[in-house]
């Protein structure tokens, strides 16, 4: 049975809760909660991607676009129309869901490389739109003045407050995703991954499920985008380029695609690498990502999530 243990989830949630409180007391890592806000935002995307890629076996190299759609809808509706940010967040998710259905329905009929190319093209198109629709998006200069978030008069105006907001979303989405994985729906998704003809012969509506997971992962990415926009109060297209889509893939490949924990671990590591630890490398940073991807695919095909299994294997011998 595929069971995801509850204890690690509780420990993880607790660690997340006390982290800012401890980090504050240690000067060298004082600013880590800020990085963790970004890690949480990216975790929302990679969790959905993990369900899509690791469990259902479909690839997407266009998720930066969904992230961007959420961010821009929040940015445009709040700054130009003064709408309530929470409403914009929901509108962003709804619009993204519609876009994901329109993109997913034809492209998820493709497999392997072809699906990769289709989602890649979609990502590039959306990136061009962000750059060119200057009237709406501000073009390459981006948009500033995006308001922060408040809830019943409570302002999420400090790093800590935003940290708890983001990670609250992450933990909720994590639990939802884990539940899906452990249910009959998760079983159907893994069945699609293993054999589409057999899944169909057992009554699984394969195309519907593929679209459903694609939409779910896109909606999570959109939510992440809105949270990103309201945290930075600024968006520009460069955030949502092709490289970001690839970075998302590196995150789940490093952590391990076939395990939901892999998404969390991989995302955390890559976020800290790119926001903090790789600054020495400057533009050569990309080479490090390449090396990581190469190392993981050759030596750790199951990612870091596969390491406990490998270690257990050593002891058994």
């Amino acid at each position: 049975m595929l069971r995801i243990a509850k204890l690690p989830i509780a420990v993880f949630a607790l660690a997340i809760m006390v982290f800012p409180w401890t980090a504050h007391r240690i000067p060298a890592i004082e600013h880590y909660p800020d990085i963790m806000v970004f890690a949480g935002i990216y975790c929302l995307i990679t969790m959905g991607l993990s369900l899509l890629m690791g469990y259902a076996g479909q690839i997407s190299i266009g998720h930066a676009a969904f992230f961007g759609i959420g961010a821009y809808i929040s940015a445009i509706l709040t700054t130009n129309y003064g709408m309530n940010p929470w409403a914009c967040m929901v509108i962003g998710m709804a619009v993204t869901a519609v876009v994901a259905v329109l993109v997913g329905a034809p492209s998820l009929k493709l497999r392997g490389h072809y699906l990769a190319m289709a989602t890649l093209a979609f990502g590039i198109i959306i990136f061009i739109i962000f750059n060119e629709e200057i009237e709406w998006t501000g073009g390459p200069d981006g948009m500033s003045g995006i308001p922060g978030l408040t809830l019943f008069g409570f302002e999420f105006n400090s790093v800590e407050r935003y940290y708890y907001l983001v990670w609250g979303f992450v933990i909720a989405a994590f639990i939802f995703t884990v539940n899906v994985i452990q249910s009959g729906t998760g079983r159907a998704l893994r069945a699609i991954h293993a054999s589409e003809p057999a899944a169909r012969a057992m009554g699984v509506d394969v195309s519907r499920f593929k679209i459903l997971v694609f939409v779910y992962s896109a909606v999570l990415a959109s939510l992440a985008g809105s949270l990103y926009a309201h945290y930075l109060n600024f968006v520009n297209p460069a955030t949502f380029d092709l490289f970001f889509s690839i970075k998302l893939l590196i995150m789940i490949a490093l952590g391990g695609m076939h395990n939901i924990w892999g998404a969390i671990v991989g995302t955390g590591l890559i976020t800290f690498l790119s926001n903090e630890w790789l600054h020495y490398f400057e533009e050569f940073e990309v080479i490090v990502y390449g090396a990581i991807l190469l190392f993981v695919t050759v030596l750790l095909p199951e990612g870091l999530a596969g390491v406990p299994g490998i270690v257990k294997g050593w002891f058994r011998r």
Partner: protein
Amino acid sequence: MEENVLELQGVVMTFGGLMALSNLNFNVRRGMIKAIIGPNGAGKTTLFNVITGSFPPTKGTVKFKGQPIQHLKAHKIADRGISRTFQTVELFGNMTVLENVMLGCYTRIRTSFMASGFVLPRSRRKEKRIKESALKILKFIGLIHKFKDSADSLPLGEQKLLEIGRALASEPELICLDEPAAGLNETETHVASSLIRAINAKGITVLLVEHDMKVVMNISDEILVLNYGQKIAEGPPQNIRNSPRVIEAYLGAGEV
């Protein structure tokens, strides 16, 4: 007993210029074991794929319990009560033996995406029912002791049994077995044959494609012989055994 579960009328299947099935008519009566035999490339697997909705026939109708189903997609046909196995085993190798059978219950008991995400008490009860029913089937096919193993790790004989078990989990009225004995040794073949009989004894109609003549002659009530996509004979085993057209199709025309 005389009721037809499956009726094929004028079924034609062409792939480009190749006619895989030409104007095929036959019926399968409820409760029988019917075998389809024929030389390689006769169209047996194509016929299975048409019946189970892998692709629609170019022409003709397929009726299941009197309702035309030839336009339905595979998963809809599964919902109606036709289940199948595959010639080359198509198990979910990344899942355990139990999970494979549990997925087989999908046509009967399913939860929506949202309900599974929020773990409503209802979905938890459903999951329990699925598990109980899957365990029962594993007992029936004799694989209960391996329920935790990954499906990939089983020997071929057991993989074939598991595939049949997964198909049974949907509680079909008609089960289509594509070469259940292919690649099995004598003992395994014997196990598979008795399993097919036991399935039939439960009242499930069986349609099977098989090359092992001993199995076919032993267990089937009726045999349909295909050659180049055409029906060349149909009837009880003893008639087929002695049919000159069948012998010719298998051994070639005796010119010497």
